[in-house]
């Protein structure tokens, strides 16, 4: 919009999961876009569809998931392509995976096959996407391992995953994801399984490499502190929908949606009195199966308006440039309380 180059735009993404009990609509019309070099934070509780959205971009969701919508990505070979239209096992999408869009996962300990050395698995990416030449590929892979801060890379190259610590494995995973210098990195809760001290190191590393490689990052997390540190923009997800987006400042200093407010309120702040209870959002996330009409946050919302919120789903409302929210209560206060009836 402001002259920046858009790398990826997801439009009205819907993901259904076929279960024995029926169809579960896990993602219900998610739209967002990421500019070159930008970091978008995708925030939400467990089970709100963050990971599914990420995996849908790469087309690596389970067979049980059916995906609708459009994901336009600026590919190297053919310009803008709808990734969802590519056959999921075909060569075109495999050329995107790992080379143009990479992903790092939550638990580095299970992301590597225990049967092969770390070097072998990092080098697999290199040889697949950059060069078939064994010597050159190994040099590139080793270089990347050094870049992510793996000391003694030559020796580590020939070691197996069980000889690595969790933090080192996450570094190796990042090396594996970035060895082909992708345009977009999807980081799906990359620090959840790590110690706090290691977390900070890994976040710093991702930030540094992002600047180095000028890549965009889709940063998925449920940790709001991490978002503030890492992201330019934030999209808050609730039950398969993005309910508020905005810049980090907008979301942190002027949250509109009651859910966003609740999330921010439940963060522990240094300096609060001992007696004060930490705020928590009442209730639990409902199961996304046979959802009632209206706003899906209705049951847990403090600002709910009976007769409105439980009848009609809220539309996306633009408050300022880049700040959107989907909430009846918010639109009512802004429009003077009369527009929606």
């Amino acid at each position, binding site marked *: 919009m402001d002259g920046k180059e858009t790398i990826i735009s997801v439009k009205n993404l819907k993901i259904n999961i076929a279960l024995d009990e029926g169809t579960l609509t896990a993602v219900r019309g998610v739209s967002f876009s990421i500019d070159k070099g930008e970091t978008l934070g995708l925030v939400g509780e467990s089970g709100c569809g963050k990971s599914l959205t990420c995996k849908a971009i*790469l087309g690596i969701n389970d067979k049980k998931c059916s995906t609708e919508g459009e994901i336009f990505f600026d590919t190297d070979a053919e310009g803008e392509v709808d990734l969802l239209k590519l056959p999921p096992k075909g060569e075109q999408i*495999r050329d995107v995976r790992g080379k143009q869009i990479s992903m790092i996962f939550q638990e580095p300990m299970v992301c590597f096959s225990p*049967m092969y050395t770390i070097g072998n698995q990092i080098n697999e990416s290199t040889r*697949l996407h950059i060069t078939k030449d064994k010597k050159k590929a190994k040099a590139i892979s080793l270089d990347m391992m050094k870049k992510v801060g793996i000391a003694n890379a030559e020796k580590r190259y020939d070691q197996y995953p*069980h000889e690595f610590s969790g933090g080192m494995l996450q570094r190796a995973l990042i090396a594996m994801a970035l060895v082909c210098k992708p345009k977009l990195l999807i980081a799906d809760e990359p620090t959840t399984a790590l110690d706090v001290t290691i977390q900070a190191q890994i976040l710093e590393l991702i930030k540094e490499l992002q600047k180095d490689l000028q890549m965009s990052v889709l940063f998925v997390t449920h940790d709001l502190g991490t978002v503030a540190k890492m992201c330019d923009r934030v999209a808050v997800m609730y039950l398969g929908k993005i309910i508020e987006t905005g810049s980090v400042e907008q979301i942190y200093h002027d949250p509109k949606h009651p859910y966003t407010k609740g999330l921010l309120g439940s963060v522990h702040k240094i300096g609060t009195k001992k007696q004060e209870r930490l705020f928590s959002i009442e209730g639990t996330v409902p199961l996304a199966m046979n959802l009632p009409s209206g706003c899906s946050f209705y049951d847990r919302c403090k600002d709910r308006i009976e007769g409105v919120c439980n009848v009609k789903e809220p539309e996306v409302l633009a408050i300022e440039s880049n700040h959107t929210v989907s909430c009846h209560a918010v639109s009512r206060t802004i429009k003077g309380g009369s527009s929606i009836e």
Partner: protein
Amino acid sequence: MGNYVFKRVLMFVPTVLLLSIAVFFIIQLPPGDYVTSYVSRMSAEGEVFTSEDIDNLREQYGLDMPWYYQYGKWMKKIITEGDFGYSFSYNRPVWSVIMDRLPLTVAITLIIMLFSYFVSIPIGIYSALNQYSVGDFVFTTIGFLGVGTPNFLLAIILMFASFTLTGDPLIGLFSEDILREGLNFSNLGGFLKHLIIPIVVIGTGNTCGIIRTVRAQMLDEVTQQYVLTARAKGVSERVITYKYCLRAAMNPVVSGLAGSLSSLFSGSTISAIVMNMAILGPVLYEALKNQDMYLAGTILLTQGFLVVLGTLLSDIALAWLDPRIRYAERSY
């Protein structure tokens, strides 16, 4: 790796030695000995034995000594002279009785094992990758039937089928011309034809078992996170299946190698009797019935030796397959 193999090989000798003690101890456990069963058979035919005769016979065969003494003598001769003792009922050295049949037994067992792996692993992979497809259901059904049907019953059914269809029940391993001329190039086809039923009969249970194992393991592996990681970096499904999943899935198949070897040895006995196959199983059965202890002991020892050898090979293969096993060994 070298260290690991060396240790395993070192363990081989004491294992076989312990095995031989166990075998010998168990064989002499039943009341009576070869002389008892010999005397009772002869008495039934009208021979008269005095107790002095019986004692003489015992002394002649060395059966009047305690079992550990007999064992020591037996072992000493095996180690120093390669003499495995004398078969009372064949009136020949045990080793010559065994060598009549051992090569064929080993050959058939190996063929059956190769057959089961070649058939079962691809089917297991197919079933896992196409879970709940028609093909999967067909193979699963056959698999359960195969595991559940007793070998000898299958043997009888197949021989009957062969007889009604071709007029030849395919009994025994060799057709008459082979017995007359020996195995040569022109009658090789006939020999292979005679192998079909034994392979199917003895191999089916094993094959079906491996299909189930491979299928279950593959299903387990394809849901692992590392498969997703590999897919996310653009690795093709083929490589994912064969480089990653299959290698991990082979673990229980390889470690089950020795087990299936011993079950093939023991499981083939009844089938061999039914099909009149000249392998060791029926000889062992007869030897045990007649209390022909050195013959029975040597056959058991040989089979045990082969199973221990199989275990050794599967241990080495396992260490080659899975680096974690090598690692665990190093940290001791």
